[in-house]
């Protein structure tokens, strides 16, 4: 099942929103308005949006430290996301999560885990929950090529197969776990083939092609909803920026500039999709309006974030417990 015309428009809109959000976010990070670390999703927009569009509003997602694209791809509002990056009290996680943890539960994102592979069992657990409750919801986990070497990937894929859980294992294979390539860290280059060992269908999809990603994920979602079990999807993609903005890499480069330029110039998912849309009858003006809308939405989110108050330092104990029992504890003369 391919993207209908309105879905194509929405796909392009969400990809543009991710791109603009990340471009502006990196600028704010460099300027010191965003603290901590910054992992950009630029280059991976088609993989993210294609997968998200195949899901319903009541499905579940877990993600990764490269967390900004997932909620935007699932349709989240930008204001609270940008406010979170700036550590404001209006942030989606109230200033307690930050850049690596932009989970927005209003669009089904349960968590974004900065422990590599940490979110994989959570999504399968959400799938188990759906099965136990008798609903047809699915759980999709985004993870990277690096996470496919964690025990949680293998253990969870096995359990999802044993119990036929409505789970989708979606690998954003951007070829590098920080500086470690798939070539030097995987026994063979295709992560999808690992599915076979667990009796699960595994398929490879061009992660720069939003339509192909959508179709593959849609098929996996249908399988899951019909209680036929999990699917592993490997989207071959590429990150255009460094693992983390400003990362200092000592010694020989781990990827060549020629490789990077090939992706940026010929495999940019936005440019590829724009060509498809123009070919399919969308006008340049229509698409430019979408781009402009994305740019304005990001500008408005930055404005919201800047005007939002910082959290009070004394509020640090809030949200430690859902059911606090004598918390925070009495100081008893203790400093710290």
């Amino acid at each position, binding site marked *: 099942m391919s993207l209908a015309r309105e879905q194509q428009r929405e796909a392009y809109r969400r990809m543009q929103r991710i791109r603009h959000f990340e471009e502006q976010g990196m600028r704010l990070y460099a300027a010191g308005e965003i603290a901590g670390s910054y992992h950009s999703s630029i280059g991976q927009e088609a993989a993210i949006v294609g997968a998200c569009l195949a899901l319903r509003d009541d499905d579940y997602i877990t993600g990764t430290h490269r967390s900004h694209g997932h909620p935007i791809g699932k349709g989240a509002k930008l204001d609270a996301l940008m406010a979170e990056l700036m550590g404001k009290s209006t942030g989606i*996680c109230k200033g307690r999560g930050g850049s690596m943890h932009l989970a927005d539960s209003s669009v089904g994102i349960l968590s974004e885990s900065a422990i590599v592979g940490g979110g994989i069992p959570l999504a399968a*657990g959400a799938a188990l929950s*759906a099965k*136990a409750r008798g609903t047809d919801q699915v759980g999709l986990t985004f993870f990277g090529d690096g996470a496919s070497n964690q025990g949680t990937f293998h253990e*969870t894929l096995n359990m999802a197969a044993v119990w036929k859980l409505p789970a989708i294992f979606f690998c954003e294979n951007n070829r590098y776990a920080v500086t470690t390539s798939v070539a030097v860290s995987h026994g063979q280059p295709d992560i999808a083939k690992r599915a076979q060992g667990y009796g699960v269908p595994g398929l490879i999809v061009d992660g720069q092609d939003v339509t192909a990603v959508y179709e593959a994920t849609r098929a996996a979602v249908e399988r899951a909803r019909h209680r036929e079990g999990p699917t592993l999807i490997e989207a071959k993609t590429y990150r255009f920026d460094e693992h983390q903005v400003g990362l200092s890499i000592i010694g020989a480069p781990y990827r060549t500039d020629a490789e990077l330029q090939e992706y940026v110039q010929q495999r940019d998912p936005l440019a590829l999709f724009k060509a498809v849309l123009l070919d399919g009858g969308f006008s340049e003006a229509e698409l430019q309006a979408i781009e402009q809308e994305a740019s304005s939405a990001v500008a408005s989110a930055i404005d919201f974030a800047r005007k939002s108050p910082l959290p009070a330092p004394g509020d640090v104990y809030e949200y430690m*417990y859902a*059911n606090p*029992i004598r918390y925070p504890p009495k100081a008893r003369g203790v400093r710290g």
Partner: protein
Amino acid sequence: MTAATQSEFPAMQRMSYLDAIVQAQVEEMSRDERVILMGEDLAIYGDGKVLQAFGDLRVWSTPISENSFTGLAVGAAMTGMRPVVTLGIASFLYLASDQIINQASKLHYMTGGQMKVPAVFRCALYYGKSIAAQHSDRCYPMFMNAPGLKVIAPTDPADMKGLLKAAIRDDDPVVVFEDSAFWGLKSDVPTDPGFLVPIGKAAVKRAGSDVTVVGIAGGMKPALAAAVALEKEGISVEVVDPRTLVPLDMDTILESVAKTGRLVLVDIANRTCNGAAEIAATVAQAGFQYLKKPVLRLSTPDVHIPFSSVMEKPLYPNKDHVIGAVKELLDLESVV
């Protein structure tokens, strides 16, 4: 069990500590269909009875994948279920600790309150049985040091049942340490399904006036035995059972120390940074004025548990150690 409990819930049934664990789970699973059980080889020991009482979608018998099935439970907890994870022997908690600490304990906070993790992680303190260092750990102090968790260590059948039921109904992740020293212990337990023991409330298990002895988990066994023996010598020992290690009920302990002025702590965990250390530090800061003598701490030394029982048995605090410590605080000749 306290006198208040007896008057509030007059109907009693005599049962073992292990039976109390089974009954707590069966009652809560009958009461609330969101409660599910997960773990390895559930057919053996007490959980086999739970397995028989409920079907496949309530009881999930897992492969040996502690970290990931714990993660599945966390994901299920975040999406409307209330999982009880049985992890077997406490040493296996290390395998699950990534999901317990990095996910379960942190997600309510890191999502700014968007997610709740109402999960229970059960394990047995299984030591003193010649099973060597990889099966004999008493590792609750490590989990006391992970904020966001609640930690309970009940020491008699009624507390076991009431606290486990309270843990299952709690909206936060709770780690339960079940001490095998009490498995066969039988006593009267309220039959009312509404019987709960509040998390975070210590119990004075034996009133006294000369010395306070606080026993943690299996430390309660020698504490109570010593109190009975000392009574025959005319020495009045007050025995306090914290029951919950996080949040620790320091008010009850300080109240007792204010009365006696002397404190012996009995903790079966290794000495460094254990529960006794935390209580001693807090009493030194908040109750120094009550102390007539230095606090005495009886712990297992910082050594691995050997297989050979002649080396293992003397390591744990026993009745004679407690008697010796109490007499030392009273400037009496010790028998040991």
